[in-house]
């Protein structure tokens, strides 16, 4: 089956013969592709927006928090508030091989921090330098805490974005300046601009981060804290880690192993998978609806080709009489069908890509959301294109077989 300029001309000639009908039939395919791609693109865009809420969090983090017990156990009454301590970290590090980073989170709510006459009520967080593996900072200025800051208990701090915006409204670089927290001066070493909406003991936007050992000492925490963060080692099971950590903590702090409320666990993997599953569902729905519309369009093409073949019985008979083989007729009808489908589909792709680009531009202009791409991928477009070709062949098959069976004698009959 060769394809050349003659074949192309044949297709254009026949399609152009009944313009309005061709246009209406093509519209069915156009609309199917347009809707399919538009919905796929919109789904992807929404997913990106939703995922921005978790920005910076690794997908394999586990956060464990201490909450009041819900069962009496080992001589303790229920509703006991317990706390984790540094020895727990050592124990977990040695016993749970699935754990990679094990790091505490100290927090102190609503502290007045001030600089140059401006103040803001921020949450103090005492973190270890390793915490950056749990939640990746996005530095606007300076750097995040490093190992030396923590080991030497330097009086340094990293500002959350909103804290910085309030205390330095001119947007200037605050690094090297000294922030006053609880009557003490902390040197500012950086600004973390991350805008994730996951909040563990307060949003990181609102936080002032200081080295954990320093905060432990200055606030006289005595090595006690309420939240511990983990990352799961490559190849490790998050679930196994959670179970091991829970049983270790329960044993060390005399908590009923059956107590479901005393140890709170947040598994980011689960969170991500919820979003993933949600959008998997959305995509399936989109594919169902989109492919359904497309199929309806293809059936329309098939129908019209059927009518066309019937109308062209004489013409096809003539072609057969002067030497066209059945295969030539077959391939002619199929290429017409594929031509119609692919050309209409291409318009669908073009228009939906254009529209998605426009939507992306408008949404990205919103500073609250930031840059979001609603565009479909190159491979998706390529996949859709091959799908179109297949649909075109299928739609043309029945009419083509019918055309193939037209006997040349039919051409001799009076019109």
């Amino acid at each position, binding site marked *: 089956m060769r394809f050349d300029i003659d074949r192309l001309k044949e297709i254009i000639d026949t399609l152009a013969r009944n313009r309005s009908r061709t246009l209406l039939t093509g519209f069915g395919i156009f609309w199917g592709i347009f809707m399919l791609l538009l919905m796929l693109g919109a789904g992807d865009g929404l997913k990106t927006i939703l995922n921005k809420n978790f920005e910076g969090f690794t997908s394999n983090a586990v956060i464990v928090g201490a909450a009041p017990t819900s069962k009496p156990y080992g001589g303790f009454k229920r509703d006991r508030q317990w706390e984790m301590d540094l020895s727990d970290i050592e124990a977990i590090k040695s016993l749970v091989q699935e754990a990679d980073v094990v790091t505490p989170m100290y927090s102190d709510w609503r502290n007045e921090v001030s600089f140059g006459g401006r103040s803001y009520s921020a949450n103090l967080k005492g973190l270890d330098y390793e915490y950056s593996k749990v939640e990746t900072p996005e530095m606007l200025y300076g750097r995040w805490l490093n190992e030396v800051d923590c080991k030497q208990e330097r009086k340094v701090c990293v500002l959350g974005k909103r804290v910085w915006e309030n205390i330095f409204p001119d947007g200037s670089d605050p690094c090297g300046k000294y922030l006053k927290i609880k009557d003490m001066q902390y040197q500012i070493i950086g600004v973390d601009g991350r805008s994730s909406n996951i909040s563990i003991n307060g949003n990181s936007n609102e936080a002032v981060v200081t080295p954990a050992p320093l905060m432990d000492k200055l606030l006289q925490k005595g090595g006690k804290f309420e939240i511990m963060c983990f990352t799961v080692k490559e190849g490790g099971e998050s679930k196994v880690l959670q179970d091991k950590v829970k049983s270790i903590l329960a044993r060390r702090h005399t908590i009923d192993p059956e107590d479901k409320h005393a140890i709170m666990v947040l598994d980011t993997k689960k969170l991500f998978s919820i979003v993933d599953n949600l959008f998997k569902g959305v995509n399936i729905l989109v594919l169902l609806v989109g492919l359904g519309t497309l199929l309806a369009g293809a059936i329309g093409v098939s129908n019209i080709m059927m009518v066309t073949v019937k109308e062209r019985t004489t013409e096809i008979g003539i072609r057969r009489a002067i*030497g*066209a083989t059945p295969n030539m007729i077959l391939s002619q009808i199929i290429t017409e069908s594929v031509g119609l489908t692919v050309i209409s589909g291409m318009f669908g792709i073009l228009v939906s890509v254009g529209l998605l680009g426009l939507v992306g531009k408008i949404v990205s202009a919103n500073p609250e959301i930031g840059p979001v791409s609603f565009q479909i991928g190159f491979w998706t477009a390529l996949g859709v294109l091959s799908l179109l070709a297949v649909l075109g062949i299928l739609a043309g098959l029945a009419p083509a077989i019918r055309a193939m069976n037209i006997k*040349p004698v039919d051409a001799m009959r*009076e019109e």
Partner: protein
Amino acid sequence: MLIELKDVNKTYQGAQPLHVLKGINLSIEKGEFVSIMGSSGSGKSTLLNILGILDNYDSGEYRIDGKLIWDLSETKAAEYRNKMIGFIFQSYNLIGFKTAVENVELPLFYQGVSRHKRHEMAMEYLDKLGLAQWAGHYPNEMSGGQKQRVAIARALITKPDIILADEPTGALDSRTSVEIMDLLKELNEKEKMTIIVVTHESGVANYTNKIIHIKDGVIGQIEENSRHDATAFGSENGMLK
């Protein structure tokens, strides 16, 4: 012997089987100008279909240039039609959305001849038939005579062994009919084309050199007509219409 039919039978199956051709024996030499004459229902159309490899026969033997035409696949039949036979129909059977030159090119398109080559050849044939300036026109912009001449050009372009004309003047007025018949006669005389005309008009048949009468599915009288004075059906002195 270019065309040879031996005891060819054809029955149309149906509720009442119709035995249309009852043992046709016929030979036509290369370069002959023959007409097959008969009234409607005589079987002449069926004979034409078989001669043109458009239809199968039930028994007997049909050979073109020694080649047995029997039990051909559709593809093979299409190839033979394309190479060996040029058709001229009563209703021209041009493709309406193609220009004159594109219509003439079509048989070559199915032979896989290159665009340039077949366009050149088509123009040459149109020119021969005096239609060069009509090449770009569509059939509905032309007169009946012009359309038939385009059809003749299309029939000639593959240089076939046989031209089969089915009532070639059936849709034309008498003046144009004379033109077309003169044209066929000239093709026979100058180019030594073998031409078979199927007709029910004695005037048309009178142009040919041999008139084969067919009646009720059998060949009747075969008239030598070199003097062109046959008045077989007694129509007014054999003139067209």
